[in-house]
């Protein structure tokens, strides 16, 4: 990975005040699915420091193009065409190279291609809703898609998710594993959403809100949004006596 020696440091402790708490009654499903007892804390062992990695070689040509990866030949998904790009960093600000990102989303009408989604908005026959990519040597990534529509969901009598893209992120250690969501700058539904509001700190919500990036647009083709993602950093091992076999 990049220019560094193998990464064997333990990860920075997770800031569990910054992340949503397990029990967030405004998001009703959390009530019966949130552990209530204290977590067991211990310093990372090799089981947490290591993790699976995925090479660029496993990627198909259209994996990072949701406009076309499910579309019939010569056709494309309906919707506002966008590029989503950014950088995967760790908490020390270093790019995370060779990391797998997977993303999924509703179509432009707010409908998922999933048996459980009964929203009356139509499926787009040319849109599957999944994509993936691997970050480059400096942690950069990009993909093309259509802007997903907001959709209603049965948490309350009239609740709507803001437009969002789900992200699943691998770093290099199993303890870095993260799933999150990207929101779009200016969407008035962000502040109203019970899932967004599982996060307490407004600055943390900003961190999940991608900005319109006119510099990265493709003129006459696609708008662009910039979304950086940060994974846990690794502690320095400079002054540690590393035991053999550790």
């Amino acid at each position, binding site marked *: 990975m990049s220019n560094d020696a*193998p*990464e064997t440091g333990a*990860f920075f*402790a997770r*800031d*569990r005040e910054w*992340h*949503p708490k*397990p029990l967030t009654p405004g*998001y009703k*499903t*959390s009530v*019966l*699915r*949130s*552990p*209530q*007892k204290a*977590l*067991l*804390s*211990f310093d990372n*062992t090799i*089981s*947490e*420091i*290591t*993790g*699976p990695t995925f090479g660029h070689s496993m990627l*198909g040509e*259209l*994996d990072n193009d949701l406009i076309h990866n*499910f579309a019939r030949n010569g056709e494309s998904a309906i919707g506002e065409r966008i590029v989503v790009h950014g950088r995967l*960093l760790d*908490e020390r600000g270093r790019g995370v190279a060779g990391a797998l990102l*997977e993303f*999924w989303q509703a179509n432009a009408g707010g409908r998922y291609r*999933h*048996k*459980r*989604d009964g929203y009356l908005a139509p499926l787009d026959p040319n849109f*599957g*809703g*999944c994509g*993936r990519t691997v970050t480059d040597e400096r942690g950069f990534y990009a993909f093309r898609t259509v802007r997903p529509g907001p959709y209603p969901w049965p948490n309350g009598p009239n609740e709507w998710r803001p437009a969002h893209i*789900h992200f*699943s992120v691998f770093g*290099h250690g199993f303890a870095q*594993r993260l799933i*999150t969501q990207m929101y779009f700058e200016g969407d008035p539904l962000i502040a109203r959403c019970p*899932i967004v509001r*599982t*996060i307490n700190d407004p600055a*943390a919500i900003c*961190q*999940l809100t991608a900005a319109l990036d006119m510099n990265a647009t493709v003129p006459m083709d696609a708008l662009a949004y910039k979304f950086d993602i*940060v*994974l846990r*950093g690794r502690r320095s091992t400079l002054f540690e006596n590393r*035991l053999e076999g550790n």
Partner: protein
Amino acid sequence: MAQPLDYLKESPSQTAGPYVHIGCLPNFCGIAGVYPADLGHSMVNARTRGERITLSGRIIDGTGTPLRDAMVEIWQADAAGLYNSPSETRGTADPDFTGWGRQAADPETGLWRFETIRPGPVPFPDGRLQAPHISVWIVARGINLGLNTRIYFPENEAANAADPVLSRIEHKNRVPTLIARRDGAAYSHDIHLQGDAETVFLDI
């Protein structure tokens, strides 16, 4: 005032939601033709070294109902106790064992199942051995931040008793929540999100 430390904050987690399969297991949920196979579906091949085992279980909510929309990932050492990872510096793991698996809970029964091998023991940072274990990560609708836990093997009584992580559990009656049940080469393990039998989850 002092100089700012200038560390970034980890991106906050958001729930995987009910449609996590679209992104992580598209073939499983009927989105065919985008990827040749779902990642993590197969951990072993015909050449993988070690004893074959299966590991299955359910994730149970606060009413006793299995989650039917969860996704489970596991990570483990190979038969010799080496991880298939660039961060593994003690040797080279079996190239025919990925060490990583990903499965969905069954949409009807909530049951998930992995075909894998028995892992070897790996060291704790102080050099002691940890008992053989499988690391587990769970996401689902209603889970705001992925849950980490471990699964240990019931027949390794002495190793489990000496395990540095299990030893940290203050209430010893909770240790069995991390130990699978065995039926030959088939292990089963239910994970309880709440209640008296709540599984020990890890802050790692």
